[in-house]
């Protein structure tokens, strides 16, 4: 249902945030991160958490609203319920490796295999947002 009238947009990286902890700098900089992407009028908030050898990619589609207008520790506001969709991990050869539906807040969670580069596609109604070359 998404294949026919869908615009494909490569998301633009806007912000990359990494935790810096003394003594674990290398691991942290190369490991856990949070990124904010923009695609058309949507933001995509992605974070990668590496724990005990496995990596989890968590994301949320949020509306394009200045972050400053809400408390710094508040959760992003959920996307409207009409923007239902799926998040897909694809290999470099374009094979779908994993796929989940967005939850009611526009969020998703995917296991990201370590050491393998993947593409992420967030497929919404009429729009597919692509983020290339994600590696845990």
């Amino acid at each position, binding site marked *: 249902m998404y294949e026919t009238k869908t615009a494909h947009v*490569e998301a*633009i*990286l*806007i*912000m*990359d*945030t*990494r*935790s*810096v*902890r*003394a003594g674990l*700098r*290398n691991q942290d*900089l*190369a490991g856990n991160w*949070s990124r904010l992407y*923009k695609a058309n009028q949507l*933001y995509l908030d992605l974070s990668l958490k590496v724990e005990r050898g496995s990596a989890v990619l968590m994301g949320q589609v949020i509306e*394009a*609203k*200045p*972050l*400053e207008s809400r408390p*710094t*520790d508040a959760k992003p506001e959920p996307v409207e319920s009409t923007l239902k969709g799926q998040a897909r991990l694809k290999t*470099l*050869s*374009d094979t779908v490796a994993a796929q989940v539906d967005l939850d009611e807040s526009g969020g998703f969670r995917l296991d990201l295999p370590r050491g393998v580069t993947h*593409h992420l596609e967030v497929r919404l109604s009429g729009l597919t947002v*692509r983020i*290339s*070359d994600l590696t845990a």
Partner: protein
Amino acid sequence: MADPKRHLPTGNEGPHERSRAEIGAAPGGPSPALLERLLQAQNPEQLYHQFLLGLSEAVPAIQHALVLVKDANGYFQYLGAYGIPGELWRGLEGLPEAHIRADFPPGETAWYRGESHLETGYHLPGLSTFELVNDLQALLPAPVSQTLTLPLLAQGQVWALLNLHGCELKPDHREAVYAYLERVIGIVRQVHEYQQSKRRSLWLGAINSLLRLPREHPLETALQDALEEALRLSEADGARLVSFEGDEVRTLAQAGWGVGLETPERGRPVRALEVEAALTRTVRFKLSRGEQISIPRYDLYPDHRPELAEAGLSSLVALPVQRPGVEGGALLLFKTQSHWLPDLQTRELLQDMAAAIGIVRHERLLQEELSWAAYTDPLTGLGNRRAFERDLENLHRLDSGRLLMLALLDLDGFKAINDTHGHVHADHVLVRLGATLKARARAGDRAYRLGGDEFALIIEGSASLDVSRTAERYRFLIEEIKVADGEYLKASLGYAVLPGDAQDLADLWRVADDRMYDDKALRRLLGGAASSPQEARRNSSKEPLSPEPSTPLSRLTTRLGQAAGLGPAELQALAWAVGPAEASGEVVTLPQAVLREAMALLGAQYERWDGKGLPQGLAGESIPLAVRVLQVARDYLRLGGSAVALAALRAEARKAYDPRLVQLLAQIVGTPPDR
């Protein structure tokens, strides 16, 4: 069309190729001249320029060439060109690998297999979809009929992209290209890696240099140097080092873009651009959690400041500068080019630099705190004895040619304050004393608590400094401090100046100390030091140091002196001046100040009211009042202490004697003193 030559040997793809590519060891490697040029390259641009120059020499059919190298963020950056003016490619934003790969005609599989591709016309994969570059083809200085694109592989990844253009790239031309790459590319990659290692070494050198900062080196200068080094090595356009102080952001150092930049406001004069405004609440919150933030598209960042984006701020990196237990700061780097995101290695090194800055700042803060504690009296906040000795020696060593005055103050009866009001109350009194001295000390004067109830002042001044008045002013300040209702602090004072009273510091201190103890002894004798009735009684119960007014002369001088208005100190000196002469011969050790005063009185007793006396010929009221009292009382008794004696004195009034005192004497002897 796909070029038949596939799987380009890169010289760095596997163990066999890697060994072949060892510098100077590969048979058929680059010519010695080219090898020397490659090895002498100081930066990637020079390296890839020489690489492409060598290629053009080997394959003259190539008219233009571009080389893009992938950075740690997966962006292919323009690092060199041949036949294309620098202004056309330098500063162009890097291309994401995904864009190039998607636009590579043979497809992704061919990309990852490193297959070359020949096509008609100009084509650089990724450019057609990249929003910031229009059409490089239109800008090329010569017509291009064919493009050969070669993804260069290393360790299974495309690490560089070669884009070659010529009117006609025939098979033998392409063979020559492949042969050249076989000979040269391995060395190029090794030199590139060597340059990166060297750059990392420069980073580490800068960080180590900061961490080894000598104590005497000013911190501000070191931070500025570190910031400029971070700016240079990160290839950013501007940098700031800021500290957070509550809601305020204070700039500690700044360099490059944004310094002194002004931005116009509609209808208003231009104002300085505050690049620190990029530190929004969200960014500061993340920094406070120890997170480093990179914003490669500042214009798209939801909370961007339009004035900063308009001024040219395109990318931003903010790194936390953390300090244990206190709010820290941030190291900020700016770029006027979009999509700037330092690679992971650079960000790690930047974070090391930020950490080193945090450590050095924290260390300096601890040093300052230690220094403060070492040289400060914690109760009063005044300098302590160590600071006093240090400052005194420093001032003396500097020898500014100015007068150096040392004033010592010792609180009178402070033990009684402790005993009567308790230690807490007494400490509060000392705290107030410290605050008073700090707030009301003359500019440049330094106050110290030497210990207990002893204080000192070091005062510098010109030769015209009124040392007595200056010292008394400080005593006055202290004696204004209230201890309890109707009870105020009292202090004994001694001072000395260098040069004048002493030859060296030890002498200066000794003289001031002696004078202070003389003053204290005198005040104790007079009861002036008593700060409470109880202490006055205790003082009065002590063995008297004053001679009892047991002789006619001492009794008369005392009485006449009181009538004439002499103060307690003068009366005491007068009593000692006449006392010993009539005492029983008992040896008494007099306080120095009292002795000096008594001697001065005796020395002046033969002056005359009309100025014809000895030794100085003083006249009238220039003769000390106590001396005039002594003269009148002495001669009255010498002449028999009768009406005749009084008449004789009256006859000599205005000549030998003060007429007012003769009149007072007449009033007194009308009621004969108690004999």
